[in-house]
Every structure is written in C-alpha cells, then in structure tokens.
C-alpha cells in the first residue's frame, strides 16, 4: 500500500516536466512548427531558473527568469523558421546545441565549476491533508499542482475553445485560409512558439527550482525528446499527450523502485526505459498512413 502511494506520488512528480514540455511542444506544432529546440529550451529553463533563484534568493523570481528565457527561445525559433523560413529540423537542433552550450558556458562562468551550489527549493504543498495515508499522493510541489490543475485545463481550453486557439490551429492546418480570413500567420506562429517555449522552460526549471534544488550537467537527459514523442503519441491533443506523460512517468518511477528491491537487481531496466520510445514508434507504425500530421507541419508560409 505504501509502495503504491509512493509510486503514484512519484508518477505525478516525474510527469510534471513532461507535461509542461508536451503541452508546450503541442502549441508549437499545432501552429505548424516542429520545435526540436525543446531539449535546449528545457535545459536553458533549468539553468536560468536556478541561476536567477541563486542570485536573488527567490525561487519565484527564478521561475520568472526561466519563463523569460523560454519566451526568448521561442522567439528565436520564430525568427529562424517563421521570418526566414529556415529548415525547421536544422534550426531546432541548432537551437538545442546552442542553448545547452550557452547554459553550460554560463554555469562555468557564474559558479566556476566549484562545489555544487544549492538553493532552498520550492516546498511541497498538500491542500488535501485529511485523506489519511493516501494524502501523501497529493503532497506535491506547487509547480505540479499548477501543471495539472491550471496549465493543462487552461491550455486545452485555449487551444480547443478560444478564438486564439482556433487561430493557432488554423495557421498550422491551412495557413492560406487563415491568411485569407485575416489572421496574421507570422504573428500567430510567433505567439504559439513563445507560449510553447515558456512552458518548456518551466518544465526544465521544475528540476532545479523544485525537485533537486541544484543544477547539474545533463539535467534534462533527453526528456525534451520524450516530449516530442509524447506529442505524436497524443496525436497533437493536449489530453492524450498528458496521459502519455503519465504512462511514461509511471514506467520510469516503477523501474526506479523495482531496481532497489532484492531479486530485481539484474533485470535490464534499460529495456523498460526504452519502452516509451519504442511504444511511440510502434504506435506510429501501427497507425500507418492514418497519422494526421498538422496540415502545414514543417512548411514555412510565404504569401504568393
């Protein structure tokens, strides 16, 4: 029982950065831009958030700084892919290489590679303390609560129900029609990329500001790529992407707990960790030609 409660709590905790990243990437892709800069944006969010919190002593200001970094990263991706119409894959990979490099550069510069610096991380909050032992599930970081209670429903509502969301989907599906209807394609794509970038950066900052309270190299460790997979797994739907993030996190948290049990030490957990990637590739293969990519996926828009 304790094992199960502990597992569920860990699943929600570990899913948090993936939820932010997946929702952020969904916004970018629904607007018609595949943002492979996500890995770097999460990394930069983690570093900038930590550095700002360290200097100011306030994790909240760290979060604000991380959001600013994410907005900037999304804007740079916009300059490249929307304004210049540059190749999206190469731009995204370049952004990731550059942001990881810049974060590690600044890390050396500010912290001189000395002993590991720490901040007081954001505290756990539990608004439901009266549920007996199960209340441990709800003892989570504020950012986890914000993700599931605020960001996911709001992001879903904006994308599916608001006129702004309709504009994002329109410029990602059929930019010519959106343009004809008076929607500014560049402006909408920029906004989608910047909102997405801010969310990705918050996902990265979750590690440094809440979970760990410190910044270490390779802190994102490919989770941005996981989000890319989850977006496709969720077929560009917020809800399904979040379910995917929870499943991935469940597997991840489970293998971590099984590993320390006697008798499980020799199992190849790497296989379990590779499972989510393989599931996404398998799901893509099984759905075959029915994968409905956004209509203007990967296509720059130019008025002719």
């Amino acid at each position, binding site marked *: 029982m304790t094992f199960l409660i502990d597992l569920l709590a860990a699943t929600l905790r570990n899913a948090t950065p993936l939820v932010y990243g997946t929702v952020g990437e969904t916004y970018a892709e629904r607007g018609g831009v595949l943002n492979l800069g996500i890995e770097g944006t999460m990394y930069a969010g983690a570093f900038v958030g930590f550095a700002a919190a360290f200097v100011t002593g306030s994790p909240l200001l760290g979060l604000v700084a991380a959001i600013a970094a994410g907005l900037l990263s999304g804007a740079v991706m916009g300059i490249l892919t929307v304004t210049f119409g540059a190749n999206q894959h190469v731009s995204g990979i370049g952004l990731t*290489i550059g942001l990881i490099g810049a974060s590690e550069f600044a890390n050396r510069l500010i912290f001189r590679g000395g002993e590991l610096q720490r901040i007081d991380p954001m505290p756990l909050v539990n608004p439901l303390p009266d549920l007996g032992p199960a209340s441990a599930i709800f003892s989570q970081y504020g950012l986890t609560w914000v993700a599931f209670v605020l960001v996911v429903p709001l992001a879903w509502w904006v994308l599916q129900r608001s006129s702004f969301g309709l504009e994002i989907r329109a410029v990602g599906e059929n930019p010519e029609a959106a343009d004809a209807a008076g929607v500014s394609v560049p402006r909408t794509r920029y906004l989608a990329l910047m909102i997405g970038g801010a969310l990705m950066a918050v996902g990265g900052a979750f590690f440094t500001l809440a979970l760990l309270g410190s910044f270490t190299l390779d802190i994102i460790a490919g989770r941005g*790529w996981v989000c890319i997979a989850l977006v496709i797994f969720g077929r560009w739907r917020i809800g399904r992407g979040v379910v995917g993030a929870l499943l991935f996190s469940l597997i991840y948290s489970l293998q971590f707990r099984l590993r320390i049990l006697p008798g499980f030490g020799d199992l190849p957990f790497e296989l379990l960790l590779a499972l989510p990637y393989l599931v996404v590739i398998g799901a893509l293969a099984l759905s075959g030609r029915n994968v409905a990519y956004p209509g203007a996926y990967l296509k720059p828009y130019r008025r002719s």
Partner: protein
Amino acid sequence: MRLPRTSPRYRLSPWSTPALVVIAVAITFLVTSGPILLAGANPIAAYAEFVVIPLTSRFTLLEVLVSATPILFTGAAVAIAFRAGYWNIGAEGQLLLGATAAAGVGAAVGDLPAIVALPAMLAAGALAGASWALLPALLRVRFGIDEVVTTLLLNPVALLLVTGLLHGPWRDPVTGFPESPRIAASAEFPALIDRSRLHLGFVIGLIVIAIAWYVIARTPAGLRLRAVGLSPHGARFAGISVSRTLIVAALASGAVAGLAGVSEVAGIQHRLTSGLSPGYGYTGIVVATLGTLAMPGVILAALFLGDLAVGASTAARSLGIPSQLGAVVQGVLLLTVVALLALRRGRSTRPADTGPAGAEATDDESAPVEEPVA
C-alpha cells in the same frame, strides 16, 4: 577590350556558397563575442586562440585532425541522407550501434591478425549502423511517417542499449566499471604518426568521403539520389524509384555513421563506454550544413570544427574562457548558416515565384537545406 573569363559579379556575389559560409562564420564570431566579453577576455585574442593557435604546434595540429575524425564520418553520413531529402537526425544512435558492434567484434577476434580483424570490425560497424537506420526508412517509404522523429527517438534507445550492455553482460568483471572488455591489440587502429593519437580512422574517413563524393557526383545512383533530393515528384516522373533511393540513402548514411563509432572504439577508446560520443551525431548535422552538403565542404567543415574544438580547450586554459564556448559557436554557426541559406532561397525564388505558397516544401517531402554545388 576583352571581357574577363568569369564574371566578377558572380564571383563576388555575397550569395555564392563559399562567401555565404564565410559571412556565416563572421556573424557567428560577432554574436559569440558577447559571451567572450562576459568571460572577461578580448574577442580578437580569443578567436586567434580558437582558430590560429591550434595550427601552430605539431601536437595541437595533430589533435585537430583527431577531433575532426569522428565528425568527418557523421558529417558525411548526414550529408548523404540530406542530399536525398531524407532527414536522418539519428546519426548519434547509428554511431553508438557501430561502436557497440566494433567493441563486440574487436574483443572476439582475439588472435586473428589485423588484416582480418580490422575489416571485420569495419563491416560489423557499418552493418550495425545501417540496420539501426533501416526501421525509420521503411516507416517513411511505407507509411509516410516523418523520419525526423523516428530517427531522433532511436538515439536515446541506442544509448540505453549501450548502458544496458555496460551495466549487464559487458560490465568489467574485475573492476565492476561499466566498460566493455578491451578490444584485441590486433583490432586497434594503428597510429598514423608516432607520439600522437592520430589513427587510421582519419584516413578511412577521407576514403569514405572520396567514395561518397564519387558516387554522388559521378554515378547514376548518385544522380538519382540528387534528383530525389531536389524534387521527389520530378524524380518519380522521370521514372526513378523514390522509395528505393530513399532507403539506399538512409542505409548508406547509417553505415557511414556506424563507421564513426568503429573509428572511435578502434582508434581512441579501445572499448565501449557510455560517454563514447559527446554528441558527434548532432555535430555531424552542423558539419554537413556548414559544408553545404557537398563532400569537399564536409572535409573543410570537419577540419574547421576540429580546429575550434581544440582551440576551445586551449583557450579555456590560457584565457580562462569556459571550453563550452565551443558548443555555443557550433549552435550559432548552424543557425546562421540555415538562416542565410533560407534568405538566399527566398531571394532566388521570389522573382520567378508563381507557384503556390510554400513551394519550397512540397506535399509530403520537403526539399533539402540547399541545392549544393556538387
């Protein structure tokens, strides 16, 4: 008065490919002078340290070639695929598979002479890399599934495969370190020059690039590859099997990336480690793009990035600039080159642009970064 043989206007055009790369390098240095100033160093002195100093001593010059070796392979691998309009982002994973195969074969060949051991390792590495590239290629041509995502997602899977082997069956039985057994002495690439780390892999890389250049520029198969990359619809109309061409390009790309892994295992590490590649597969994308997807360009770009890598580590010691600046320069350089290429494409298509919007990326297959000069 005679007209000059070649139009000086063309030669001096800022939009010619070599000029464009030089402009990109200049912009990159301008942009990265910001972080250098933050580090308290003089940008001019820093660039001298980055670019020139590595070329001034025997040791650092050889280290430049050592640094260039793996990215010669991955740069060529990426360029081969991109030329066909196949977006292989999976060179990193294909490299790791090649390295794994090389470590396995290299440890198994035991007493066999080098003349048998080395070809066996190279073949196994190329095969492993190609096999890792096969699934995304099949999904692309059978179901039209975007290969960017599938090749990318197989990178972490390859890394998990490596760490799984190193924590499981290949864990060093004596030390318990996650390192595979050392490969046989006959399976190690010989050093090319005494007292240096420069090894046979560098020469093999140049040979592979020479072959790739010949095949792409001078053979019917290469013509098909270029035709598919420039216009899949046009190629199909001309009777070329687009699917087969894409699969061949993907497999060739994977095989060459696999050789990068062989080269690192046989030439440098002599065993499989999880830190074998600090992202050589991704750097291959920088090399290929900077080399404008042309094989001579790949050689120059790999040497340039090798130079920068050595320069970044010496500058860290002499000027106190964190060596991570090398990665910043790589990223900014890549972004500047793609942006300039896109600007040029916009300029060159605008006057004649009568087609529908987004003509450069047709229905299901997007056009390559750039139509390079072969």
